[in-house]
């Protein structure tokens, strides 16, 4: 609990306490360090022992009480440890990387907020709380991507990231609604515990029945897909992956923490949390999505030139692997890969960050306009930044999944599981393990392309611009972080046996599928196949990019352009969906102005016309009548006024006439 709230403290300290940025940084590191220690303590206490669940009443609506609290089990303590660990390293790294930025206090605040949200996410004990943390994670990611808010691209990127994530959140929310309706609780243990409500719910006669409610069976699938949609957005899976490459506009340290190691893994984490909810068809969808995303992202990564983008696509690809693992039932393997990937990808980013940092320095110092992230301008950095080079190579090897590395263990476990799973399926499912295999080869190629281009050969920046630049090793704070992370890329951190992933302690912490026995042929052949061909590809890459030997020119081919254009998915979104939406909204607004409001105005105008008519009638008819009456009266008055001549005799005449008339009348009426 405290561990989660410490980073929040950081957030407030950074925002509201007026100390120097350095002091804030120190406070932030102290907080996150404390978090790490607490997480470690908790880890030791909870791991493989009884889980810890603490909750308090939060809101009561009607008869339904929503509790909130924390749930610590193997999954959450593992994630806590991972998040706080990597966060600490990134914090340390950032002290140097972000040095001198005028808005540093905001940086620490956002970072603190993120760590809080992420830790909250992993320890939340109910879906709603998890959703809240989930969105907060997205929000802090939004803030961090747009940290340099004067950059137009950064702002566009953070908006895109948030909105795309919002789509996923929508799925999550719908999932929550379905779950709540069906089970009347959102508590994770009650729902997904070993004897929980989800496990006991059955599909019978087209209806999905649980103790608390009943719905058509379609909603079971819908719930699975809805939650998966959330995971897809957060973990940047096809078709919602487009925000992640753009998110690289944020500071590299942020990219490494959020967009490589932790936040993007939240989707996988979510799937693991609610795993019992998924039916077979949803799992298949997950597997297919994962496999496809992995493959697609790998192909794109092959041809990109921006160092961070390559890594971003690589991340997407690896997340695809995790999804694939989830979909194929290898929940544990997926999580294992999540952990190992967190370390080596974080390392890759941080190392890349060190490179970019140096390049940007050159840019600032020499005043040359170039893109510090373009690998075509790098090269030969091996000698100038040896530690960076070494650590990055280690991370790359881990990514490729070569033996002795952590990646080897986790990736193999996924692949082998996938093959085993495919045994029991037919049709499209058969293709999944092969595509994963292919993807892992592509991985080897693109990452070695990156390494060779950046670190081997000559510094092409100098060659092209004909200037001499000084590029040094990264500052010590950054360097040590790289080294620490590199240590975690080796096998011993996860398993004492470098070749047998089954021995990995992480795998033992989770419910293991029954296929984890070493009887199958796959267990020997697949690692062998993966590694041999990967080695071959690395060699080719070395020939092409390291040695600068003549290579076939693909750049004209359609496939190359297709990959370079990132499969045009993003363009499709921008040009079709976004502008479509905007034009629809304009249309709706026009509708609102013209039709709805127009109707009102027409009413008003009609009423006005009516009133004009009424006014006309009033003036020309009613008023005429009145005026006529008045005129008549006036004329009559004038006429009778003539009798008032002021002459006494006339008055007398009149008077007598009246008297006479009276007499005559009386006479003829006979009264006289």
């Amino acid at each position, binding site marked *: 609990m405290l561990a989660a709230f410490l980073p929040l403290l950081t957030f407030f300290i950074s925002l509201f306490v007026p100390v120097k940025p350095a002091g804030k940084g120190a406070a932030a590191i102290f907080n996150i360090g404390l978090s790490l220690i607490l997480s470690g303590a908790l880890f030791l206490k909870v791991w493989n022992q009884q889980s810890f669940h603490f909750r308090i009443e939060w809101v009561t609506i*009607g008869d339904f009480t929503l509790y909130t609290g924390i749930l610590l089990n193997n999954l959450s303590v593992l994630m806590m440890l991972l998040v706080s660990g990597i966060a600490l390293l990134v914090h340390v790294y950032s002290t140097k990387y972000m040095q001198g930025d005028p808005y540093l206090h905001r940086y620490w605040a956002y970072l603190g907020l993120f760590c809080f949200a992420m830790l909250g996410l992993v320890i939340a004990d109910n879906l709603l709380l998890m959703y*809240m943390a989930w969105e907060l994670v997205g929000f802090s990611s939004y803030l961090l991507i747009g940290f340099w808010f004067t950059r137009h691209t950064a702002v566009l990127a953070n908006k895109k990231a948030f909105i795309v994530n919002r789509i996923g959140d929508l799925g999550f929310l719908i999932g929550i609604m379905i779950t709540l309706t069906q089970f009347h609780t959102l508590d994770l243990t009650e729902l997904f515990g070993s004897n929980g409500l989800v496990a006991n719910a059955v599909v019978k006669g087209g209806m999905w029945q649980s103790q608390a409610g009943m719905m058509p069976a379609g909603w079971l699938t819908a719930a699975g897909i809805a939650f998966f949609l959330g995971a897809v957005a957060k973990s940047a899976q096809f078709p919602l992956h487009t925000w992640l490459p753009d998110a690289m506009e944020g500071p590299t340290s942020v990219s490494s923490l959020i967009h490589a190691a932790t936040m993007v893994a939240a989707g996988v984490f979510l799937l693991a949390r609610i795993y019992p909810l998924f039916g077979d068809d949803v799992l298949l969808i997950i597997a297919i999505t994962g496999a496809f995303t992995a493959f697609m992202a790998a192909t794109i990564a092959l041809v990109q030139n921006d160092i961070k983008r390559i890594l971003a696509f690589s991340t997407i690809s690896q997340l695809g692997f995790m999804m694939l693992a989830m979909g194929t039932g290898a929940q544990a393997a997926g999580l294992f890969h999540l952990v190992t990937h967190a370390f080596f990808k974080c390392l890759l980013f941080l190392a890349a960050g060190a490179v970019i940092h140096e390049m940007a320095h050159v840019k600032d110092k020499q005043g040359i306009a170039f893109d510090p992230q373009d690998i075509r301008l790098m090269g030969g950095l091996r000698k100038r930044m040896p530690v960076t080079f070494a650590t990055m190579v280690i991370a790359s090897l881990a990514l490729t999944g070569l033996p002795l590395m952590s990646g080897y263990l986790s990736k193999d476990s996924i692949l082998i599981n996938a093959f085993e799973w495919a045994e029991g399926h037919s049709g499209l499912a058969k293709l999944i393990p092969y595509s994963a295999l292919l993807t892992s080869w592509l991985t080897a190629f693109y990452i070695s392309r990156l390494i060779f281009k950046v670190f081997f050969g000559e510094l092409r920046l100098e060659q092209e611009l004909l200037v001499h630049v000084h590029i040094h090793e990264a500052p010590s704070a950054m360097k040590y972080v790289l080294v620490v992370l590199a240590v975690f890329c080796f096998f011993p951190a996860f398993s004492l046996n470098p070749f047998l992933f089954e021995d990995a302690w992480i795998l033992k912490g989770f419910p293991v599928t029954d296929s984890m026995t070493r009887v199958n042929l796959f267990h020997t052949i697949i690692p062998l196949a993966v590694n041999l061909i990967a080695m071959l590809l690395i060699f080719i890459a070395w020939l092409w990019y390291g040695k600068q030997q003549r290579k076939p020119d693909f750049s004209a081919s359609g496939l190359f352009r297709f990959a370079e254009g990132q499969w045009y998915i993003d363009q499709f979104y921008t040009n079709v969906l976004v502008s479509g939406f905007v034009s629809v909204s304009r249309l709706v607004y026009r509708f609102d102005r013209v039709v*709805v409001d127009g109707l009102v105005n027409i009413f008003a105008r009609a009423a006005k016309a009516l009133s004009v008519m009424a006014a006309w009638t009033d003036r020309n008819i009613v008023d005429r009548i009145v005026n006529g009456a008045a005129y008549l009266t006036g004329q009559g008055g004038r006429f009778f006024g003539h009798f008032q001549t002021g002459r006494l005799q006339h008055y007398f005449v009149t008077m007598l006439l009246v008297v006479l008339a009276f007499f005559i009348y009386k006479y003829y009426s006979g009264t006289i």
Partner: protein
Amino acid sequence: MSLLSTLIFLPLLAGVLILVMPSAWQSRFKYVALGTIVIQIVLSAFMYMNFNADLAGVSDQNKFQLVERLPWISIDLGGLGKLQIDYFLGIDGFSMPLLVLTSIVMLVAVLASWEIKTNLKGYFALFLLLDTAVMGVFSSLDFFLFYIFYELMLLPLYFLIGMWGGVRREYAAIKFFLYTLLGSVFMLLVIIGLYFSVTDPKTGSHTFNMLAMMDPANYTAGSIFSVVSKQMLLGVPARLLGFIVLFVAFAIKVPVVPLHTWLPDAHVEAPTPVSIILAGILLKIGGYGILRICFSIFPDAAVQSSWWLGLIGVVSILYGGLNALAQTDLKRLIAYSSVSHMGFVLLGIASVTPEGISGGMMQMISHGFLSSMLFFLVGVLYSRVHDRQIPNFRGLALLMPKYTAFVMIGFFASLGLPGFSAFIAEAFSLIGAFTSENVNGFLPRWMAVCGSVGILLSAGYLLWTLQRMFFGETRLMGGEEWKLALTDVNPREVIALSVLAFLGVLLGVMPSLAFEKMNSAVLELIRLVNPQ
């Protein structure tokens, strides 16, 4: 004088005080108003603290709190029976939170009134009259009294918009006035119909007492709105027609989609404090009226038409969101977002589930705080450069960092970021709508699913605005002149905004502060509407 009457008539007294103060003291009027509102807040806070959450209210006078019932107008009409109008006040879980909301929003509006420079005497007198009327609407339990306060609101608003508003203020004021009047005129017909249908069980005479109207036993047999006799009017069941008429009257206030067009115009043209009151309080009267009057008096008709209500709610959410996306005027954008957000209220209420109604109520409270905040923010910008067009601004974050921070809080809060009240409100409204099919079968599930797309839309337009106006390199239409004019928020504005932001966060983190007070009332209402 007891608490509620004090709460209602205190502003009126202050208004009179301002009227009799010499005009030379113009600069002191605002402090009088501020002092009044502060007293009001203290009173309403006291009311909140002492509110007994176990008493449900809704239809039972004994379960209301702070009840004041005095015979007011009592005339023997001979053949028509006895005219009985009571001065009847009381609060329950629905009205109490809204009274608290009103006093707080009024505080912000007074703080925003610092920008008003002309004819201060009239302005503050009308302002405080409006305050009285709103307080009266939320606490009266006699329909006639309710109607009087309801109409009394229109008058100051008309003048406040029409005299202190923007360029097209007269158009907007008249549009607003006519729209609302249209609704309330028909409402009056229904009120009279109800009056002749209902007798007070104690005195045996016809009555305007709302609580008496809620009990089917009080209807005279064969009267127009009688529950058992099922009279027809214009080929529609009379009770359904009455419900529809009342609903339309309140729907104009909410506003729901085909009846919303007064809102953007009124908001755009109104001065900032009036926009704040409009969005913060007046829209809530619509929702409150639907709960207190439409649903409670015509529960049978409410059940019949809940599907349509839900549909209107969903349409409002989506339509408002899409419209907001197309706006270039910041204030208009927020006005349309209000339409969208108030759609959640309707959707939640229509579901007749505890989650839905609580969510709807929460959305009203939350929207009260957040839209006030947003309009206040627009006012801050407008008061500095007299422009609100989104394309005319860019990169304000560099110039006004604190302001931008508040804008971000406001925007993210209203797009439903967890941790803010709007999230809780929208989530529960949607959950309520979704569970409705299982609980009572009023709303199909797709409505909730469609409604949730509104959350996505709100993210779209708000973030887009944020990106266009606040981020990037600074580039302003007014050039250097604007750059000098655009100073960051001053302490007065910081206080007002912080109060709202704090409340938004407080309710987001501890929603039970509001939920627990209204829970029993919500359950009672559901029992009344859908007795199962």
